[in-house]
């Protein structure tokens, strides 16, 4: 029983292989985070396909589930939190860094290629025999819960540490009691400012999204009407174009009425 890959598998490999490499290069070189994430998804899915093509169906499906399903989703959540548009400065300030990196990466690649290329590989083992005996799912289960049960268990320590670390580094506990609505209105009255509440965002009926500041009677936008989070993120739109549009309409009305 030969385990050598068939023609179909070879064709599949030579088409998808370069694509997987392209995807991973995209992960590194894409300027936008979303593109990078998609590049990674591409690579992961192709790897999943490879596994399936090699009769490791379970592994292939898990690969797609875990990486493109769970891990990618997490990435995208993070991207959403950070903001899709945000990107890092790509200007390299260190002299010679890129050149040296390129040379060394090529060097490492060359060395490894030379070393791995010199190897005469034996007949690949393949999973056919296992598939025929017990099926690779059970085989893997036996490894995970048998030979590698310790590693499997120890991994849980890693996950707990990660959760604990996330709590330590990201969870801000509220110090003291927070104010409720009643407290806020009391405070407003006591201070005598914004007694009627802060102005709501939006320009008349034309546009009432939260990122558009309201206009004061004199036509100037008021920053009080938008959340300061949006201001900090620089995601506040200017109401000018609505004002202009309004002026235009007002002008037209005036024109019409004077006609």
């Amino acid at each position, binding site marked *: 029983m030969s385990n050598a890959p068939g023609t179909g598998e070879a064709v599949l490999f030579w088409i998808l292989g370069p694509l997987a490499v392209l995807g991973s290069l995209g992960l590194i070189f894409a300027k936008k985070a979303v593109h990078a994430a998609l590049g990674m998804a591409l690579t992961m899915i192709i790897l999943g396909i490879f596994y399936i093509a090699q009769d490791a169906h379970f592994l292939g499906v898990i690969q797609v589930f875990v990486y493109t399903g769970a891990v990618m989703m997490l990435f995208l959540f993070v991207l959403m939190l950070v903001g899709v548009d945000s990107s890092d400065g790509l200007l390299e300030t260190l002299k010679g860094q890129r050149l*040296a*990196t390129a040379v*060394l990466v090529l060097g*490492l690649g060359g*060395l*490894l290629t030379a070393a791995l290329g010199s190897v005469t590989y034996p007949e690949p083992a393949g999973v056919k025999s296992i598939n025929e005996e017990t099926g690779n799912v059970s085989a893997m289960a036996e490894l995970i819960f048998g030979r590698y049960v310790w590693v499997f268990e120890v991994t849980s320590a890693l996950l707990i540490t990660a959760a604990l670390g996330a709590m330590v580094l990201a969870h801000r506990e509220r110090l003291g009691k927070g104010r409720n609505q009643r407290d806020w209105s009391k405070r407003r009255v006591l201070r005598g400012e914004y007694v009627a509440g802060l102005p709501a965002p939006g320009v008349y009926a034309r546009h009432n999204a939260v990122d558009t500041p309201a206009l004061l009677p004199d036509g100037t936008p008021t920053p009080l009407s938008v959340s300061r989070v949006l201001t900090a993120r620089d995601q506040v739109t200017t109401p000018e174009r609505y004002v202009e549009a309004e002026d235009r309409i007002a002008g037209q009305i005036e024109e019409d009425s004077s006609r």
Partner: protein
Amino acid sequence: MHTLIQSLATEGAAATEGGHAAYAWLLIALPALGAAILLLGGKRTNKFGPALATGLSWASFAVGAVIFVTMLGLGAEERAAHAELWNWIPAGQFQLSAGLLVDQLSMSFVLLITFVGSLIHVYSLGYMEHDPDKRRFFAYLNLFVASMLVLVLADSYLLLFVGWEGVGLASYLLIGFWNHNPAYATAANKAFFVNRVGDLGLSIAIMMMFATFGKVDFASVNAGVDGASTTQLTAIGLLLLVGACGKSAQFPLQSWLGDAMAGPTPVSALIHAATMVTAGVYLVVRSHAIFEGAPNAQLAVAIVGAITLLYGAIVGCAKDDIKKALAASTMSQIGYMMLAAGLGPIGYAFAIFHLLTHGFFKAGMFLGAGSVMHGMNDQVDMRRFGRLSGAMKVTWVTFGLGWLAILGIPPFAGFWSKDKIIESAFAVGGTRGWILGLATLIGAGITAFYMSRLFFMTFHGKEKRWTDGQHPHESPATMTVPMIVLSIGSGLLGMILAFAGFAQWLHPVFGGEEHEEHTNWPLMAITLLVVAAGLLLAYWRYWREEVPKRAPEGNLLTQAARADLYQDAINEGLFMRPGIHLTRALVFTDTKGVDATAGGLAATIGGFSSRLRRLQNGYVRSYALTMLTGVVAVLGVLWVMN
């Protein structure tokens, strides 16, 4: 046990186990205990601390004396004894045990160290009386004595190295005791750096001994010399010489001694005259087997000695600072000892002989200088002294005895020891004998000149050149008594030791055949003539004539000598400049961390360091690049090799 003795017997002395060495640990333990009590006890011990330290130092001397007397009662071949203290590193291919070796050589040192050390303790009681922190000073003194005793009593190079580092540390602590003077920092740094070079030499030598002999105790090394190649022995010998040069301020590592005079004077007397600086001589003499197996290294020792003895003598002629002049003289006298140690078996005993007498008379003179400074408001410029003989009678007489001793006027101490070195040098024969002999002879003449100059400028001369408001007065008894005791030693020790047969006493340590002693009368006469010439010249220039209060320009030689023969300039030119240029060429970031004065090597390392530091720029991507470089480099090297 029997085999051990037999194996040792081939090398002359056989060290019996235990015996009178059984209590030798007390020698070290007593002063160490003192240091511990004073340092750990803190202010509580302020009152009785200094007295306790002095007492313990004397107690150590008493133990030494008892052991010495016991030794005298034994036959010549039974006097060496060995006491194993504990098994230091018991496992593995290399075994190490720590033990004490009590033989004639180490006992000579023990008596010198404990006796002179205790006298200096007493002297310090007076000298440091008003110092608010004198408890710490005495603790350091005790620590020094203990370390020095470890150095000389050690039975292996490794334990010797412990003492070696210990005296280094204690001496820094003592020199740095008064560090109010900011310029002093530079000097301390220099002493520090130069000594590190020496220590490096010694530690590499020890490592090479490990590699060569598999052991580092004296007995095994001596026994193993026959099996080692001359190249190995020469390398070890030269490295030991580097170590000795560093500690004993020998050429080319001599530059630190003059600067170290910034410390309190009792320290200079103890460390820079009697004990620590002679450790190099001890090391060479103790390693005689290695040097005998490596004639080239032995010659190097003699040459270093000859150069230093002339160098120190010439520099001594031009120094106006009384302590620096004495320091130059110390350097020169240790040069004599080194030279003697480099002569081979004929010289060893005389090197140690001179070391002992020198320990007495030089310590005495340093204490005298301290007494002068004490009476003259810490003035050290000899051009501001003159005719002090009237005001400070005791100091004058005791210093005078030391002066006669160093000149080698019979029957004072130096005559018996220095003269023997001159004789031995000529006795070597051949061109080598002539060159070394002439060096010692000329050195003796110059010594006579500059020591007389020092003596006359301080105590005699045409007039008093004191600064206004000086009222010189004699020092208190705690200071004068030690000076008197030492001056008696300067006067008589040489004669006593010579007639008691010191050379024969030491002989079993070195083995080999005994040398017939026959005095070379014509040479002795010539030596005395040369000495007298030097003395008369000094008399004529510095007693009869007026000494200007400010140093005259002088001729080229004087200027050169005054500048320590341009040692700093040479150091700078040879080591520092290239280092600094290299640094400048390499450095991109600051060099603040580098102390340029510490020397060229430091500057070079510092420059290298600064350059490497540039790689540590704080950017992760740059760090990752460094890692990648490492991966590619290692893989590349292995790929090429396989």
